């Protein structure tokens, strides 16, 4: 037992006060987005800052949704251009505001990247952790090295590759490089190492095939890892502005981030409209983060172990 001296106690109180001030400062931009989105023009252009909207209005959102329109969902079938000579589109649903379409694109992109990453990484992580195959060490070092490489460095070859595959300006051009990024494999390997070898051995003795072993034994055991990876990939993919910027060029294929960024370049003075856009882009992902926060934190820490 230690007797807390007056000085340490004073320090504790001081540090809590500082923390609270910092927390308010960190939350402020978010507060400014949300209130800005609902402020009338008078408040936006006031020379004295208006800390709280004098009147809550949805005028900014009306403007945002009135801007452009597009079919709700339209998806280029991957590789269709390479096979049939022209791009085949699935087009579904009524005509909606452009911003909603951007949101649908973003959700599709993030969910697709998430599913593909989890599936491929779970399999690869298991193989790297539990199989003793030729070339394993080499492959693993390649993965670790590639993780330190900034994604943007390979940007130009990636674009040329995508245009050779006729995938440029489709969401797939953003999805595929995300799936290829080896962080997921690394993370899943960490989790799969926790599977006791005896269980796998027992399954083999009992005559379970490779696929059966994977689906009935491995997958349930690495489930927390898959959860962490899923939420991690979803959020990163949603916010990967750079990839979206270079790969997507037509308005109907924009993601919400890209749409807002373009709007910013076009009308950099209409702050109310921009805040409405920013709020629309940030709200869904923040809600997802808050719901799955636990898995997310786990994913970050697991990725760092032995990193």
């Amino acid at each position, binding site marked *: 037992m230690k007797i807390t001296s007056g000085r340490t106690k004073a320090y504790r109180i001081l540090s809590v006060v500082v923390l609270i001030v910092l927390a308010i400062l960190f939350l402020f931009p978010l507060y400014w987005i949300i209130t800005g989105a609902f402020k009338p023009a008078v408040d936006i*252009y006031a020379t004295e800052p208006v800390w709280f909207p004098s009147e809550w209005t949805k005028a900014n959102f009306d403007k945002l949704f009135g801007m452009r329109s597009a079919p709700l969902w339209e998806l280029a079938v991957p590789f269709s251009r390479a096979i049939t000579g022209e791009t085949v589109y699935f087009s579904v649903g009524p005509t909606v505001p452009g911003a909603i379409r951007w949101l649908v694109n973003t959700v599709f992109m993030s969910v697709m990247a998430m599913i593909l990453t989890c599936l491929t990484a779970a*399999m690869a992580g298991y193989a790297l952790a539990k199989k003793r195959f030729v070339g394993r060490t080499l492959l693993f070092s390649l993965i670790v090295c590639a993780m330190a490489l900034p994604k943007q460095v*390979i940007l130009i070859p990636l674009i040329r*590759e995508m245009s050779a595959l006729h995938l440029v300006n489709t969401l797939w051009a953003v999805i595929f490089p995300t799936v290829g990024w080896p962080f997921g494999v690394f993370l899943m390997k960490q989790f799969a190492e926790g599977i006791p070898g005896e269980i796998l051995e027992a399954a083999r003795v009992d005559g379970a095939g490779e696929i059966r072993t994977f689906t009935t034994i491995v997958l349930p055991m690495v489930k927390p890892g898959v959860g962490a990876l899923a939420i991690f990939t979803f959020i990163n993919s949603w916010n990967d502005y750079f990839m979206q910027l270079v790969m997507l060029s037509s308005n109907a294929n924009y993601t919400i981030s890209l749409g807002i960024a373009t709007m910013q370049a076009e009308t950099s003075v209409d702050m109310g409209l921009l805040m409405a856009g920013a709020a629309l882009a940030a709200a869904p*992902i923040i809600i997802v983060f808050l719901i799955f926060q636990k898995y997310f934190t786990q994913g970050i820490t697991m990725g760092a172990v032995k990193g």
Partner: protein
Amino acid sequence: MAKQPRSTMSRALVRRETISGYMFLLPSLIFFLGFVIIPMFICIYTSLTSANMNDPGSFVGFQNFMDLFHDKTFMMSLKNTFLIVIVSVPTVCAFSLWVSSAIYKMKGPALSAFRCIFYLPVVTGSVAVTVVWKWMFDNYTGLFNAVLKGSGVIKDNINFLGTPGIAIWCIILILFTTSVGQPIVLYVSALGNVDQSLVEAAEVDGATNMQVFWKIKWPQIMPTTLYILVITTINSFQCFALIQLLTQGGSDTNTVMYYIYYTAFKLTEQAGHFGYANAMGVILAIFIGLLSALQFRLAKEK
């Protein structure tokens, strides 16, 4: 994980393991090789050619690299990139370490609330964050100008993002708010894993809080510090969205990452000078590799 000696495994078993191993790896390998490794090699090769948008170009050896070191804009962006890294890496590390040591002993809800708040700017996404900061820094309707003027610190509005020498610090500030989230999560978990019996023993022996921190906790969280140094360095090197959305490389804020994008996609003298841009990418990758290696070295010695 002890590696099984090869000799005890029969050759048939090795073959079986290899085949099944690669079957499981195959889907992942297609994406990894196709969209990471192959582009990496193309990048290195292209950096040695005069390729541009419509023309594969011819082999020019190290000409692009030579040209880069005579390119004033490139040297400027290299300088800015290093400034960002040198300022933000230590401040992010120190700040997140302080916050984490202040919060890691708190009760569950308070801890997750703080952790969450500091992580929010990352989740919000670079575009939404940048758009709101741009407004706050705005010359006419911005909050900073209004507050500073109201409190009498400045007389005339400052054009924060349009003044060379100021703009880069605004960018560093925003980058800072979006960089501390992950280190805090990592430090909180590392501090929670510090061996409590050592801490208690030291306290019984009359060690001060400072001594406990530097002699016991600091060495134990060293691997985490190292990891944080590396990811923050990589993150700062990649600073792009902020530049592209706030200044477009104006007001002396060009960074290597933005200059690569600019050279490849914006109209320069030779539109889409891919070879040149790739040479920059290679240099960037080399710097990051060297810095990461250096940080590992330093941390190992200590």
